[in-house]
């Protein structure tokens, strides 16, 4: 069964600079107000329909990300946010880089940008439902 509306979102920062994290957080503020779409930020991936990942996945984080992905409810949808999550961004050849995210877990929607604007993040999350 696939849902059409009101996804619950869990969020994981896999080692980014905070920029993307802040823009995800900004989505919840009164201006962007994701509650309009019934989107709610949930603590545990077990309760979430969509997992939002930002940041390069560093070596220490890799197993955590897999662990969180396993807990995610079926059907699993992952939205990768920001240049870091998509390709490694400026940290591409860093010694700590174990990603990008789609090398580790399947990704449904990519949202490019450094950091992407809240509008595109919301669009990405809604796109993942289709």
């Amino acid at each position, binding site marked *: 069964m696939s849902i059409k509306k009101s996804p619950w979102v*869990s*969020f*994981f*920062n*896999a*080692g*980014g*600079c*905070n*920029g*993307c*994290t*802040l*823009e995800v*957080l*900004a989505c*919840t*503020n*009164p*201006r962007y107000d994701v509650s309009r779409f019934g989107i709610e*930020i*949930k*603590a545990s*991936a077990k309760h979430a329909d969509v997992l939002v990942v930002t*940041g*390069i996945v*560093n070596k*220490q*984080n890799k197993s*955590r990300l897999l662990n*969180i992905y396993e807990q995610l409810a079926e059907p699993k949808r992952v939205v990768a946010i920001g240049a*870091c999550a998509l390709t490694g*961004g*400026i*940290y591409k050849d*860093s*010694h*700590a*880089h174990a990603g990008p995210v789609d090398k580790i877990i399947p990704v449904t929607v990519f949202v490019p940008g*450094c*950091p992407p*604007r809240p509008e595109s993040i919301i669009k990405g999350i809604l796109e993942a439902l289709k």
Partner: protein
Amino acid sequence: MHKTCLFPIGPQHPSLKEPLFLKLYVDGTTVKDAVFDLGYAHRGVEEKLEGKQVDTALHAVQRTCGICSQCHTMAFLRTVEGFAEVEIPDRVALQRVIVAELERIHSHLLWAGVMMHELGLDTLFMYFMREREKILDVFDELTGNRVHHSSDLVGTSKRTFSEENLQFALSTLDSIKENLISYRKTVDSHDVIRDRCIGKGLITKKDAKTFGLVGPVARACNINNDVRVNSPYMGYKMLKLNSIMRTEGDAHARTLVRLDEVFESMNLVEQACNQIPKGSVVPKYPVKRIAQGYGVGASEAPRGENFHFVKVVNGKTARVKLRTPTLANLIMFPEAVKGADITDVPVIVMSLDPCISCMERVAVVKDGKSEVWTSHELFKGEKK
């Protein structure tokens, strides 16, 4: 004799916007010991900054932290412009300060919002986030970017803030001031906030001195170590600035110090906008190339002193060392939560305002063998 039991928080946790693994050893509900397990946000910032031309390194330096991007730029430029003896025009100096102070406002508002969220006051969280969004609009207007401002180059700025831009900044600050005054009043008088913050996470002045704490955390213990006051740089030389200090040293004092700093920063932006000389700062190309030299420099980030060491050899950066404020304050975290009730831990940790992403450093041990570096080798950045 009770045994302690381990209470893990993180690395993925809704109240931590960054990955941090907090291990609390608790007896009943009292925290006996705490370990902060790091490395989840490490991405080799300093490594990334090596072997680059200074202007390219600037791009990477900004991406050290999404909250205080401009402060890293300022510290880096202060260092480089210091040893390369590059003079900057007054207009550039003030433009940089305007962005930096707006950044302090946005960082403190974000912090205040998250702190209120930790205290269970989600309405205030939303209020603070609403006001913060307006500051991001100003960034958008001034620099074209919301988060990583990228507005500066060595010796100059990328764009001239027009008269309308500055007016927009001033009117936005005006429009949020009244709200912020009333939020501050609420924070100061709200029973829940007072109950949960006063006397919690107490740091004595002596401890703060011994551990070398920086920023609002130290200023809440009546230690003035504001870089903007002690060694003014760039536009701060032209502005009048009061340090906000308190004596209590607890979570409540830290909250009020930050909120008062917001008003002080607004004041600085106003001063800077009024003093800014007319004219254009469009860079003359080529921007000065920096071939050799090394130096240190510091800037006051929202969380405290941000210290950079930069060494340039043959036009490329050979070593960049960043000492971010959270790195200086982190040593106090386990001490501050020891003996506290477990329900107070989120409030105490949040009141110290951790910013993990820019702080993560690791020593890579490739083959499990340890290596000894002499201070001379470390300074040169290479092993013989």
